[in-house]
């Protein structure tokens, strides 16, 4: 990342993550390495365990590009992180409300007074709040248990909680292997997969941001064309069953990659909910920050 | 309690230290055990006490074969072995049973007898060598054991204190006639206290001689007979002669 005099980075550092299948494809096939080989630019891949790790890496200047959920990116931005969103790696339906068959919960309204597992501050949590909000249920009318995503799944299947705001691939797995079923889904309540870049990098090397997006586009096209093979790559990288990987991929929409109004709206809605639940300070102007965060210009100029 | 040793052998790492030691102590007898440094006196006491079970041979007490521990035996080790976390009085009453006051009473009485009334509150690290040894003696005597095993109990005491404690031992003996095995390297002491002295010698060491003193107690510390006994014992100990 330390640049030469001629505005060329020595090294570009990207993260890859099991929640961003395109990043796996990109890494697997080395499109970017191929592209930049001649210029002598090194590519470094860093594994992100989750959105907040990716954002931590961005904030500490450990990566230049990081993949995170839209809502998480927003929170980080609110806290002053110098990052911006330049690309959408997927429109995932990675979160939904899950219960077990024998819990006899059929509607979101039935959740009143029940125990629900969720990870505070993350997409599933926002999803839960919005779903409850839609039904006019106040969060205080349910018991939200703060559990990490994987632990939430365990708590659900072992009966410690009645419902769970789930996240893929955990969700896909419990769906396939237990009597868990999706109680409520709504793709629009998910906040998209944001590929973020450090502002510093974007300012110094705008050309290379573009090159990275180009490579991402190439990987996206390949993904769209080879869903079977992507599932294999995902299964391999995440050490999960092929079936689980397929189910997870089914719920990912890779057709839209330029950040735009829809994305902005999604994170603003998420931001409001987060303000209500005091994860984000009430005095913050969400609108402003969302506009600041999303920069569609580079993607627009790259992708026709 | 009578005590009999039959053909005791003890080896460490294959090297025999004691060979074929046998003797019998009648109830109430005081037996001295004499031998050069490293001749196995302490080892023999450990065997009798039951702390050491890796010996060959038999230990017979009151005509019954005996193995393991026996709480009617008291052992004054060669080192004071005080518990560093207990003060003098607590150390002395360690082995006593009964109410707190009873224990304290007995403890203070014996501390008086060994000349340590002033020091009952001190911790072992605050004691002089001889004081620590006297605490150990007090701890052993206070329980009125039937068999007393003493491993050089008075070695760290000055001549004067030593005489006082020798007399204390005799007083104790007068009061209930315990059987006493006394390891000592002070021959005058052996002659003053014991009914019989057993001399260990050789490598591995064996019983080379037994000498009986028949004078009634209390004895004279400086009788002329003593000099003869002493010469006899020293002679038997002398390793240069074989």
């Amino acid at each position, binding site marked *: 990342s330390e640049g030469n005099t001629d505005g060329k980075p020595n090294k570009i550092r990207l993260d890859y993550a099991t929640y961003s299948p395109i990043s796996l494809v990109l890494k697997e096939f080395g499109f970017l390495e191929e592209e930049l080989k001649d210029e002598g630019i090194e590519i470094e891949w860093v594994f992100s365990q989750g959105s907040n790790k990716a954002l931590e890496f961005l904030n500490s200047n450990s990566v230049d590009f990081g993949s995170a959920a839209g809502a998480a990116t927003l929170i980080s931005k609110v806290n002053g992180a110098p990052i911006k969103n330049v690309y959408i790696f997927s429109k995932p339906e990675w979160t939904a409300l899950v219960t077990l068959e024998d819990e006899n919960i059929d509607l979101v309204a039935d959740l009143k007074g029940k125990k629900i597992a969720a990870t505070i501050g993350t997409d599933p949590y926002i999803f839960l709040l919005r779903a409850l909000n839609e039904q006019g249920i106040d969060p205080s009318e349910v018991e939200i248990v703060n559990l990490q995503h994987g632990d939430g799944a365990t708590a659900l299947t072992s009966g*410690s909680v009645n419902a769970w705001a789930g996240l893929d691939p955990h969700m896909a797995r419990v769906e396939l292997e237990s009597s868990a079923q999706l109680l409520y889904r709504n793709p629009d309540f998910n906040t998209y997969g944001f590929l973020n870049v450090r502002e510093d990098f974007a300012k110094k090397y705008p050309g290379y941001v573009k090159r990275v997006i180009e490579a991402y586009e190439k990987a996206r096209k390949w993904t769209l064309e080879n869903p079977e093979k992507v599932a294999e790559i995902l299964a391999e990288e995440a050490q999960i069953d092929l079936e689980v990987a397929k189910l997870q991929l089914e719920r990912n929409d890779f057709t839209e990659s330029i950040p735009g109004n829809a994305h902005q709206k999604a994170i603003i809605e998420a931001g409001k909910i987060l303000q209500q639940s005091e994860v984000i300070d009430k005095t913050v102007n969400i609108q402003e920050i969302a506009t600041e965060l999303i920069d569609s210009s580079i993607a627009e100029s790259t992708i026709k | 309690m009578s005590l009999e040793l039959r053909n005791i052998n003890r080896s460490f790492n294959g090297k025999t230290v004691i060979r074929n030691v046998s003797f019998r102590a009648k109830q109430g007898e005081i037996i001295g055990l004499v031998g050069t440094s490293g001749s196995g006196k302490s080892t023999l006491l450990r065997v009798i006490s039951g702390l050491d079970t890796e010996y060959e041979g038999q230990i017979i007490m009151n005509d019954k074969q005996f193995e393991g521990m026996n709480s009617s035996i008291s052992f004054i080790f060669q080192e004071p072995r005080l518990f560093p976390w207990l003060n003098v009085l607590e150390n002395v009453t360690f082995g006593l049973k009964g109410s707190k006051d009873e224990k304290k009473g007995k403890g203070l009485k014996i501390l008086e007898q060994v000349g340590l009334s002033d020091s009952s509150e001190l*911790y072992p690290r605050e004691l002089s060598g001889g004081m620590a040894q006297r605490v150990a003696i007090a701890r052993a005597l206070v329980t009125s054991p039937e068999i007393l095993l003493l491993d050089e109990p008075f070695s760290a005491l000055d001549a004067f204190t030593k005489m006082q404690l020798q007399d204390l031992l005799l007083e104790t003996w007068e009061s209930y006639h315990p059987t006493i095995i006394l390891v000592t390297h002070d021959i005058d002491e052996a002659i003053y206290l014991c009914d019989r002295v057993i001399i260990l010698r050789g490598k591995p060491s064996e019983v080379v001689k037994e000498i009986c003193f028949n004078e009634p107690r209390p004895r004279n510390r400086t009788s002329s007979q003593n000099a003869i006994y002493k010469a006899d014992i020293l002679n038997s100990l002398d390793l240069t002669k074989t």
Partner: protein
Amino acid sequence: MGKLLATVTTTKEVKKSQKKQKTNTLHTIIFGSLTPTILIMLWELLCRQGVFPTYQLPAPSVILKTIITLFQDGSLWTHIGITTLRVFIAFILGSALAVILGSFVGLYKKAEQLFDPMIQAFRSIPSLAWVPLFILWMGIGETSKITMIAVGVFFPVYLNTVSGITGVDRKLIEVGKMYGLSSFQLIWRVILPAALPLFLVGLRSGLGLGWMFVVAAELMGASKGLGYLLVLGQNTLSPELIIASILLFAIIGKLSDWMLKLVEKRTLTWQDGFVQQ
């Protein structure tokens, strides 16, 4: 270095000279807080200068404000209270079990062969790894949380108890045996006091590890507690909350350790050990 050679005095004498120092307790405290004070001032300065941006490392004053806010809305005491209570109960349970098992393993070869290999194997399993299993076995109530912390406490106490026992001077044990002590009495009256120094270090180590295991414990569905605060801070990417909870961990951990250290000082007055210069 030459100074070390100067004096060795027994603990009792040092106590006397410590009396002199009582007037100097203030001095000691000032001396002890020297390093942290300097560090914190440096940190504040660097933050003000903008060397650390706030989204990375907020200034101490900002963190203090966070703590004060928590304090004012009353939730701070709840967080601290519940975590302390969990650690306290778990500490009692974990160390009790460790002493019992440790005594058996230390005393009996058979017990060692039977239990020790397994315990040693469990010892290197990270706290986070237990989380899913504990949820599975015990749900997300207080049981699983306290068990988790107790696991942390257990290992150092166990290890030090076993070592303490096998290291007790044979000579003293023999004295106990001569007085016909039963095994239990022998443990209680000779072995435990003699193993006390090692055992107390084990307790202090265990307490420290207990605090460390709080986070894993409070990952299991807590809605209160210092560990919850920390995880919340990480999930909501707010560094001031993270660092505030770290500070609280440090302070409370230090206080609890200090109490154990007092106990250590009290119970080990008899030790005739090396005296610092």
